[in-house]
């Protein structure tokens, strides 16, 4: 260990090479390929007003959930309860409009995010203080939150007519042809991506995910970070619940059912390793867009949409096998470099 080569900051050329090899670029190219292939088959997929809007809009709700999920997975945990949090928040938002028709829309957003964050804090507190695996805790809260939702909602349904137009317009409004909800998702992505890449706090998530024991020995506040990751995931899911209500206008007790697998799938496809410590939120968002774009592309390409889930499965498996192969090649290269030095 005495002859560790001194690494200097990479130059522009090395950075470009790194960018070309990065997972995010690969996923982005795959996404572009799917869109191009589908558009060649049916130009409306991209070039009609509806096609363009749906392409950007539909995945943005799952993308927001995937951002939070990525932070949790990077810290070597997993949050299975996100779908139930989305559902519970969506119903809360609907009920707020029923009870207080005059409630200002920004306040609803704040309430949704805070409520989701509180549910996330329940998960985080149980995981961080109870020292029990996140999978079990969030599996439990997946049931519990959904159960509370069904108990509260019953077979009721809140319809678009119960909500103010100003709120529902958010789901359809566009700015320079880009849907407002997508812009919102991008803003969150930029903020979280910057935080994770450049701040001390963000890097601590990676340190804890790479090696929790080493991170603790080093003096990082593991408990607080894990708690924060779950609060972030809950808040993101809460926001997604608000967005869902604005986008679709109807809320029943099954909103967000199955989001957990889509969000985890998106993160894994986007290069966030399930064992923690690596990946980016940008990758997770690209993963979400790839997953949902393929879903809407399949029928256009003539594949019955019954096969969508099989394709999703193959994608997830392909992504993790690819990750593994790349990681092995990387470690072999590092070994060779070290023995050469």
């Amino acid at each position, binding site marked *: 260990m005495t002859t560790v080569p001194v690494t200097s900051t990479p130059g522009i050329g090395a950075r470009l090479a790194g960018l070309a090899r990065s997972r995010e670029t690969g996923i982005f190219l795959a996404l572009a390929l799917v869109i191009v292939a589908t558009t060649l088959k049916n130009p409306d997929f991209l070039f009609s007003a509806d096609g363009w809007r749906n392409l950007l809009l539909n995945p943005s709700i799952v993308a927001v959930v995937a951002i939070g999920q990525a932070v949790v997975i990077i810290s070597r945990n997993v949050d299975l309860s996100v779908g139930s949090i989305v559902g519970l928040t969506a119903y809360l938002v609907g009920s707020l409009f029923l009870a207080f028709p005059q409630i200002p829309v920004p306040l609803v957003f704040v309430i949704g995010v805070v409520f989701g964050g509180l549910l996330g804090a329940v998960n985080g507190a149980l995981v961080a203080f109870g020292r029990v695996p996140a999978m079990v805790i969030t599996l439990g809260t997946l049931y519990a939150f*959904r*159960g509370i939702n069904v108990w509260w909602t019953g077979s009721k349904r809140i319809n678009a007519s119960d909500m103010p137009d100003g709120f529902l317009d958010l789901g359809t409004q566009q700015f320079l042809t880009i849907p407002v909800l997508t812009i919102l998702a991008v803003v969150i992505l930029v903020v979280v991506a910057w935080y994770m890449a450049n701040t001390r706090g963000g890097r601590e998530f990676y340190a804890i995910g790479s090696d929790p024991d080493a991170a603790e020995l080093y003096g990082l506040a593991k408990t607080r970070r894990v708690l924060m990751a779950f609060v972030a995931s809950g808040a993101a899911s809460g926001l997604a619940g608000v967005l869902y209500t604005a986008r679709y206008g109807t809320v029943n007790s099954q909103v967000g059912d199955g989001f957990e697998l889509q969000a985890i799938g998106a993160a*894994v496809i986007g290069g966030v390793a399930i064992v923690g410590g690596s990946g980016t939120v940008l990758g997770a968002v690209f993963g979400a867009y790839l997953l949902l774009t393929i879903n809407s592309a399949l029928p256009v390409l003539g594949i019955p949409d019954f096969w969508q889930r099989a394709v999703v499965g*193959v994608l997830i498996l392909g992504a993790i096998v690819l990750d593994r192969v790349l990681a092995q090649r990387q470690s072999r290269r590092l070994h060779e470099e070290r023995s050469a030095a």
Partner: protein
Amino acid sequence: MTTLTSGSPDTERSYAEYGRPAWRRILFSREMAIIALLVVVVIAASLRVPKFATPVTLGYLLFDITPLLFIALAMAPVMITGDIDLSVGSMVGLTSVVVGLCSASALPIPVAIVLALVVGAIGGAANGLLVTRVGLPALAVTIGTLALYRGIAVGLLGTTAVTQFDKWWTTLVKARIGSTGIPVVVILFVVLLAAFVLMLHFTPFGRGIFAIGLSKDAASFSGVHVNRTRLVLFILSGLMSALAGIYYALYYNSARGDNATGLELQVIAAVVLGGVSVWGGRGALHGVVAGVLLIGVLSKALQLVNVTSDVVSIITGALLVLSVIAGSVVSWAQSRRVRPAAAPAKTS
């Protein structure tokens, strides 16, 4: 670590003194706590819930939880090695579709059963090979195959369902033993339970499963075939899911692509409730069976008093969280209590 390697009579005697006596080890275990809870719930339900303690209710209760019981038997050893199999629910759906397609093309049911078991074994082997040969985490692999197997099941049948099956077989699956109300399939379950108990608790292979869960490296150095064992367990998990899929098709008279959606979460909840550690390395089948029964009894009793299924899922979730938290608190308390006593042993 204590210095017990010398093996002198002195150290052995002191080790026995510090260990708890066998009756306490058996009586004060996670498994016994769940069994006690199960007994309390059964007694309470029999006293308070009308029509609960009848053969008819008992029969329907067992019919309902049979798929859970089958899969939990295989899920427990998988989780004891520290792996997990999230694809079981999808495999149940896929194999029920296989049985349905065979029945629709007029193949005899025994052929359908064999085919479904083969599909289950192949699916389990695919999971196992990706985990052991490629070296991927079981959680990620089985999230992928959860989507894949479900996708194939839905892709094969679309929105249609097969509802025509050989009468003789559906009658057999729905049959009860005399007037006891106990389904005939329970006999198959008891045989399988005996086989799994033997495998897990009374063979070197079974000890290897626990060893793998405690430390893969240590197990490997002690001569346990780590990857072969894990592969075998994934195949068993696929086979038991196939069995549950066959049962699903024949008992509900319906083969659909979306059969048993979300069953994996119920199975894992029951297994964890039954005392299997999610970190791997500990668990026992009597606890697992009690865990499944507890969930089944609770849902049935609440259903009879017209409490809807959502409350059952709140209770399931809360039980799951409480059971792991309780385990964590107990081991924390034990570590505080044992540490001062164990200290002299360390210095000896």
